[in-house]
């Protein structure tokens, strides 16, 4: 398990993503790594860019493996504006290019690539948990 507090987080997306990806909990398989990296990027970006209105704030991130080493859990925590990214409606994938909105695909991709994504608001903090079976 690794855990780190980043404060401030402004312009730190790259650093936070690399910290998580370098965790010993992340499997070596490049195909799983791709999915994990993408899911981390989309969710970290959300917090760094939108959680704090003035752009100043902290974020605590961690990775953890269960005892059997079969399930990876990544947790992102911040004290920004309460926001549940999972409430966002899934994009309409059938629209032609002209009608597709720019953006709105990040969390959708994360949900597709992870086995479980959950959100809670605890003690004044947004807590987003990503879970991936890596067996």
């Amino acid at each position, binding site marked *: 398990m690794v855990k780190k507090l980043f404060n401030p987080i402004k312009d730190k*997306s*790259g650093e936070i993503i690399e910290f998580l990806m370098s965790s010993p909990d992340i499997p070596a398989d490049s195909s799983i790594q*791709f999915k994990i990296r993408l899911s981390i*990027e989309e969710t970290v970006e959300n917090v760094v860019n939108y959680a704090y209105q003035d752009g100043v704030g902290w974020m605590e991130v961690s990775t953890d493996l269960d005892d059997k080493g079969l399930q990876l859990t990544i947790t992102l925590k911040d004290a920004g504006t309460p926001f549940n990214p999972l409430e966002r409606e899934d994009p309409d*994938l059938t629209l*032609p290019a002209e009608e*597709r909105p*720019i*953006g709105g695909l990040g969390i959708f991709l994360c949900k597709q690539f992870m086995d479980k994504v959950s959100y809670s608001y605890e003690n004044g903090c947004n807590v987003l948990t990503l879970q991936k079976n890596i067996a």
Partner: protein
Amino acid sequence: MDVTIKKEGTKTMVTLQGRLDTTNADLFQQDIAELMQDEHPNIEFDCTDMEYTSSQGLRLFLMLQKRVNAKKGSLVLRHMRPQVKEVFDITGFSNIFKIED
């Protein structure tokens, strides 16, 4: 990520190398903005060495495709790696873009 843009007659060849993500999307946006200047876009991307794209990259590709459609031009993405292709498949972008080997 490295982006190389070359004019070959009326065609613009773009070669992508590395990861397209939040750390370099701003730079890629400048390249896309340049491609969007073209009044008769005929653009081909070589994605052989494009290792990764997040939604940051997708939004820029979509911006370019919208512009190309508006100008009745052509945009082809070639030699996409399976994992990158999966991102295009999941988001329905495979139906929007011309993806070829």
